[in-house]
């Protein structure tokens, strides 16, 4: 190559139109090894007597941002050296390697993927961007949109979870991507040449070769590209007839007798949660409350709506009754199953010891609301006392649940849960729930769609301390709009939009905007 490069363009002779370099674009995030992958491809091509060139624009993108590496290669000629491009051109890329699924989408958006030319090799795993993670609701981008776009934009798509494959082989995604590139046959080099390039790189060779082989095998198999892995399906088993414990069997019998078939699985989920949260008697109270609400659904409601309302009521009443408090947290944290899960999550080996530390920060608000209702209210009505106690209570507490004493602290809190139904918090939660159900119930006959949307608004109340308070305030703002919208044909639609807006940002800015829009609309309609 070096000799050829010295010759330089001669300007004589004809134009060799048929000589066209192969172009490979790598879309990756900083830290994914895109640079290493580009170097391997160059080494591969050069090893085969080709001329190859890579370039990149890492800059600060090396810090977790999306970036692109670009490689061109052409069979060398003894009498001339090629003039290779320093950047990919829309519509003129042979292979796009995407080290993450949405980066594959980005390549398509940039026009680097075209049906005439491009093999898209993309790992289907997701690494969520900050904007996807920070929403109070579900901000995760729709992976299927990328699959659909790939369906029409590529000449060929090879997609599977290369990150998982790499991890299983003790390596990183660049190695399995390189394997998939080899297995795809998109470049005219044999497998040994690819492996030679990895060996020449000299770093983490064995693990890289294992991940490479896994990627190679998987890409070589014919078949349709994988879709990105979905989250787990919601666990909604149908309730059994009996499980053998009288208290539980009575609950099951009630589900079968009183809940419409469509909502039984959800009601069963609710019953399990509330039995776990408190006891079978509390789950029984749940079924009673659910039954009372379902009885309000007029028989004339269209079947689909009736079922949807029943499912949502079964879900949301359970969520409302199983509110998050310190008894619940302690109860969950001390379980054996939880200890096992932590070991799994942190990938601890059998011979390693795992000690957990919990980060708790109770405030007087939480402590007070957990006290018996009258005592709690008595303290709350004395701000001086409340503040004094808050000074003692309100601090970060690190509980080392891996030690006996630390464990005992949470064990004690969990044991007190039998007093929780008499606590100040419980009365308030139940009052709030009743107000919410009443609001939904008011519209069951006249506008079932609106009633359904009001039920769904319970989703806004979640979190602990300030976050919980903010959720409540968002719920209140949405709930306040319901009576004003009621009677309009698009009332349900507006409430759905309000709820979606409330889940967009923490402070509720989008929600305030949506409320203003509605107010303007209402006042216009009034004049």
């Amino acid at each position, binding site marked *: 190559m070096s000799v050829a*490069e010295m010759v330089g363009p001669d300007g004589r002779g004809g134009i060799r139109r048929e000589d066209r370099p192969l172009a490979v674009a790598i879309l990756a995030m900083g830290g994914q090894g895109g640079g290493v992958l580009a170097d391997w491809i160059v080494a591969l091509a050069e090893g085969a007597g080709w001329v190859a060139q890579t370039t990149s624009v890492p800059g600060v993108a090396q810090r977790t941002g999306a970036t692109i590496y670009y490689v061109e290669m052409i069979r060398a000629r003894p009498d001339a050296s090629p003039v290779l*491009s320093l950047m990919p051109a829309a519509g003129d890329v042979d292979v796009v390697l995407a080290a993450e699924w*949405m980066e594959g989408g980005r390549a398509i958006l940039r026009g680097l993927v075209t049906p005439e030319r491009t093999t898209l090799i993309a790992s289907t795993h997701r690494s969520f961007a900050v904007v996807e993670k920070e929403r*109070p609701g579900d901000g995760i981008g729709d992976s299927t949109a990328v699959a659909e776009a790939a369906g029409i934009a590529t000449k060929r798509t090879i997609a599977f979870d290369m990150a998982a494959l790499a991890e299983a082989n003790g390596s990183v995604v660049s190695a399995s991507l390189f394997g998939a590139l080899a297995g795809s046959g998109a470049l005219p080099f044999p497998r040994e040449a690819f492996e030679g390039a990895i060996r020449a790189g000299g770093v983490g060779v064995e693990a890289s070769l294992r991940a490479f082989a896994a990627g190679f095998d998987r890409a070589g198999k014919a078949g349709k590209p994988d879709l990105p892995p979905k989250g787990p399906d919601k666990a909604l088993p149908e309730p059994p007839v009996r499980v053998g414990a009288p208290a539980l069997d009575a609950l099951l019998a009630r589900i079968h007798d009183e809940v419409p078939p469509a909502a039984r699985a959800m009601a069963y989920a609710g019953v399990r949660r509330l039995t776990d949260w408190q006891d079978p008697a509390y789950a029984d109270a749940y079924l009673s409350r659910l039954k009372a609400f379902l009885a309000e659904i007029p028989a004339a409601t269209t079947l689909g709506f009736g079922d949807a309302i029943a499912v949502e009521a079964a879900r949301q009443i359970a969520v409302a009754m199983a509110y998050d408090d310190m008894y619940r947290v302690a109860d969950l944290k001390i379980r054996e199953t939880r200890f096992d899960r932590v070991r799994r999550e942190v990938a601890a080996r059998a011979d390693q010891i795992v000690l957990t530390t919990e980060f708790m920060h109770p405030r007087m608000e939480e402590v007070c609301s957990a006290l018996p209702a009258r005592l709690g209210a008595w303290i709350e009505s004395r701000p001086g006392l409340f503040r004094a106690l808050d000074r003692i209570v309100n601090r970060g507490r690190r509980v080392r649940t891996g030690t006996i004493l630390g464990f005992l602290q949470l064990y004690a809190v969990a044991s007190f849960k039998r007093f929780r139904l008499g606590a100040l918090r419980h009365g308030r939660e139940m009052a709030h729930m009743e107000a919410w159900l009443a609001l939904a119930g008011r519209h069951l006959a006249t506008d079932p769609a609106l009633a359904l949307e009001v039920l769904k608004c319970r989703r806004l109340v979640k979190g602990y301390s300030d976050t919980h308070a903010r959720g409540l305030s968002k719920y209140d703002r949405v709930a306040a709009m319901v009576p004003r919208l009621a009677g309009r044909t698009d009332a349900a639609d507006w409430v759905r939009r309000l709820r979606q807006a409330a889940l967009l940002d923490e402070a509720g800015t989008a929600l305030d905007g949506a409320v203003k829009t509605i107010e303007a609309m209402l006042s216009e309609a009034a004049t």
Partner: protein
Amino acid sequence: MAERSFAREVEDLKLADGEVFRGEGILAITKALLQCGVGYVAGYQGSPISHLMDVLADAEPILSELGVHFESSASEAAAAATLSASVMYPIRGAVTWKSTVGTNVASDALANLASGGVTGGALIIVGEDYGEGSSIMQERSHAFAMKSQMWLLDPRPNLPSIVKAVEDGFALSEATNTPVMLEVRIRCCHVTGSFIAKDNRRPAFSLAEALDNPVRDTSRIVLPPASFQHEKEKVEKRWPAAIEYIRTHRLNETFGDDGRADIGIVMQGGMYNGVIRALTRLGLADVWGNTRVPLHVLNVTYPLVDDELVAFCRGKRAVLMVEEGAPEYLEQALAHILRKADCPTRLEGKGIFPVAGELTATVMLDAMTAFVERHAPDLLGNRPPVPDARPILADPKVKALADVVPPRPAGFCTGCPERPIFAAMKLVEKELGPHHVAADIGCHLFSILPPFNIGATTMGYGLGPASASAFNVPASKRSIAVMGDGGFWHNGLSSGVGNAVFNKQDGVILIVDNHYSAATGGQDILSSRAFNRLRATNNSIVAAVKGIGAHWVRQIDRTYDVARLRDTLREALTTTETGPKIIVASSECMLNKQRRLKPLTSAALKRGERVVRERFGVDEDVCTGDHACIRLSGCPSLSVKHTDDPLKEDPVAAIDNSCVGCGNCGEVSEAAVLCPSFYRADIVQNPTGWDRFLARIRTAAIGFLQRRHAARRIAFPA
């Protein structure tokens, strides 16, 4: 220490005559400097030229053997001033930085240097940080060459060409007594390729010889009347000498001009590959550089050689100037040249090209197509299909991606110690309301992005505090200025802290100290805590600000202590004490820390030593999916996942195994009173006998209680 080792690249610097150098562009330049007998190299790190500095920093044995002095300058101004060694002595010197920002900082020294002129070759390698991947304002270094009358090289972007440009640059500088700028763009700095190496050369005249035999000449000092003489010299002597040298040594190149073509293209050298590729797509050139459209490549973009250009243009119906960025200095100059020469050739440029922005492949193809269609449509003949993504981009399914593919700007790394600083700022913001925050250049500028959204302006490296100085009036809130340790030593100590002390600034100055110049690749600076054999480190920022007269100074040596940072910040914003309130928040850059510790840890593990790995996790059944923790973090390892729980509609938080256990999650959930979902797991690897004994007792006791607790609970079978 830079964040990675350059030991292998250092080996490349030793290549001898006839051996093949393979590597990236900026390292080829580094090798070329040694081949040219450079006497000293100085510079300030920054993309895209950081690697030049990093390799030389690791190449001390080679440099000392050759007698080459290398310096990591305090700033680009300091680097430029270093070239002063070439004013009176025949020593070749080179400096480098990121441009235009670095050239802005350096321009005082450069203007003085260019006025008096040089004796030894003086080369200024500017990494033109323009277009995709750039992190700075989009400007052109070209203007600096024009205003100070320094010569500007812009070679074709391949290794042999840029290596030749280094050689030409020194020679041109010496032939014309003028400093020469060598402009290399981002992609050119990172392009790989090869060239035939030459032996390294010792400097013909050493710095020691100069020190031992000092020379002075008042006619070289910028003071009247010499300064007026310099201006005349520039136009009467140095300029003609440059034109003569460029012409004689054929620094500019012409390709494919048989004198019969109707059109031609004039370009900056750096645009050559893009032009060839666009013409190739039109069927007018090929990948080997053969072209049917004559090309005139300006490897020297300042000064222009008038008669070369007139000769190229004359007889052609139209020429196209391919010039990146605005304003279009070259096009203006060429128009002027053609007018003066009464040359009727039509000049095209901006208009066919967009006035602003990078000349991407698509822009280049569109412009070439328009130019040829307008002035020589016959050339296009039977047009081959041109690659075109527009049809597919117009498809609704592809368009839909615009709403789905998330923006993914660079951000704080996993475990970054700067994250808790901005989490604390957000907590204070919730208490005291938003403040005017003057941001600065460095990793900490990622604070302006989600999830933190903190910071109103940036005015230049180390200028954060200075940029808040007008806000020194009575008001209910104080301004907050952020500055990194890099910016602090670059100039912030005087322009920021000194300025604030002197003017009795009442604001808060937050100095983010991560022990390195981290954003540029983790180079050592004055306050780095590592021992460095070649540099004096461990100089205290606190001592410096106190030395300059600051009184209210707080040092926080563990930025992960979010509560302490929050309280300190609150105190700074509310104290009645006057004058600047300075908080120095220090913790080691996690990227560098991991690189430093990982090998040590794995070695200790291999030896069977007890090592505790810390990691955070989220209890998914406790988490309610409100993501408040993420809005105070944004850590790549803190993500979200859907669960199978039908009662949880929103995804819950989840921490993956890339967590380095920095502690931020726990501290934030404590300080912000978030939720009790977080846990820290201490994983004891290679536990001792005592560890195992204790674990057995704990497991027995806790297991007993767990079974008892479970037995009391009536539960459905799982």
